[in-house]
Structures are given as C-alpha cells and as structure tokens.
C-alpha cells in the first residue's frame, strides 16, 4: 500500500510518500503507526506521540482502531489547521 505524509509528519520522515508492505499482523491504522515507528529514527520521531497523529484511509478520516481492510492509501498527519 501507499503511505503519504503531511505537514510536520512529512518533514520529520523526510518523504511525501512511499510504498510500504506491512506484515499481516498489522491490522489497524494504529498498528500501522506502531509498525512505521520502528522503521527508523525519523519515523520514531514523527510518531513519537501517536495520540496526536491523524490517519486517513483512502482519503477518509478514520480512528486508530479502524481496520486497514483493502485500503490502498494510508495518510498520516497532525491535526488540521485549515479554514
């Protein structure tokens, strides 16, 4: 699946997007955050406070306990500040 990052999550990881292949036991959005956090220092830094990270699956907001299902795109970002 594709992972995309925005705002300071993007800056900390140093990428706007990448292909990821999490193992089968990564079932929820929250599992994905935990798994990504272990992929390197920059990921650990980006996800150091998982509670503030928002996740969208296929461009729709989801909670951390949402199953990944067949989602093809997972996005990670801080709370929105538009408007």
């Amino acid at each position, binding site marked *: 699946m594709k992972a995309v990052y925005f*705002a300071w999550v*993007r800056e900390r990881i140093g990428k706007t997007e990448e292909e990821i292949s999490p193992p089968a036991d990564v079932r929820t959005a929250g599992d994905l955050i935990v798994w990504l956090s272990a992929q390197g220092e920059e990921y650990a830094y980006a996800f150091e406070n998982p509670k503030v990270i928002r996740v*969208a699956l296929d*461009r729709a907001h989801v909670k951390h306990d949402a199953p990944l299902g067949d989602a093809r795109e997972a996005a990670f970002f801080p709370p929105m*500040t*538009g408007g």
Partner: protein
Amino acid sequence: MTPTVRVQAEDFDAAAEAARLTQSRTDIGAVVTFAGLCRDEGGRLAALELEHYPGMAEEEIGRVVAQAAARWPLQGLTVIHRYGKIAPGAQIVLVVTASSHRVAAFEAATFLMDYLKTRAPFWKKEHHKDGTSGDWVEAKDEDDAAAERWVG
C-alpha cells in the same frame, strides 16, 4: 441545489460567488458570506503557507457540504479553500450560504466553518518577516469544541 466546492491556489472573488447564488432568483431571503483572511499576527508574519492533501481536501469538504445541505434548507452553497503561500490580508477560505431564511443561512455557514477548521486536510505553516520559516500552526482546542457543538 448543486453545491460548489473548489480547492485552488488562486484567489477568489467573494462577491461574484455570492452573486452567482442569487442571480435571477426571487426565492432567496438570506445570503451569508464568510471570508477567512490571513492575519500578520502583530506584524510577525510574512506569509502563511497552506499545505493540503490533494483529492482528500475536495472529498472531505464535499462530505461536510453534504451534511450541511441535509441539515438546513439551503438554496445555494459554495465553499472555496486556497492552498499555497498566502500573504497577510489575502483571502484563504470562502463559505457562502443562501436560504429562504436567515437562521438556516447563518447556522449552515457557521457549521461549515467549524467543520472545515477541524476536518478539512489543510495545514498552515508560518513564514516570518525576518526570513525564517516558523512553526506549523497548532490546532486549537476551542476549534474542536466549536465543531463538537453540532454533534447529535
């Protein structure tokens, strides 16, 4: 009623958008226009840079707009949100609601702005006048509280 949703780098003409909702109609009693502008924060800011999630921004605003259209009797509804670098005094976001009745137009516009603030995938970064790139603007608890009051 077909709402208009646009996510764009270019500026917009708030008056023209409002006029488009009412032209050659005689059934609209109230038009509420909200324009959100870039503040310079006491002279500190050179610009705000708005990052957005292309695709999701349009879709998420579309979902919020559908909620508003289902909840209030609206005859017209337009939301435009800009991205990119925006100078102090310039426009960032526009919401226009048209209805037979003023309460519907006011409530729908207020709801839309409260929801855009907390759900539309945009992030603001500050650029300072001294040339440094500042922090990402932090989300405010009061904005979450404002959105919460529409629930239920």
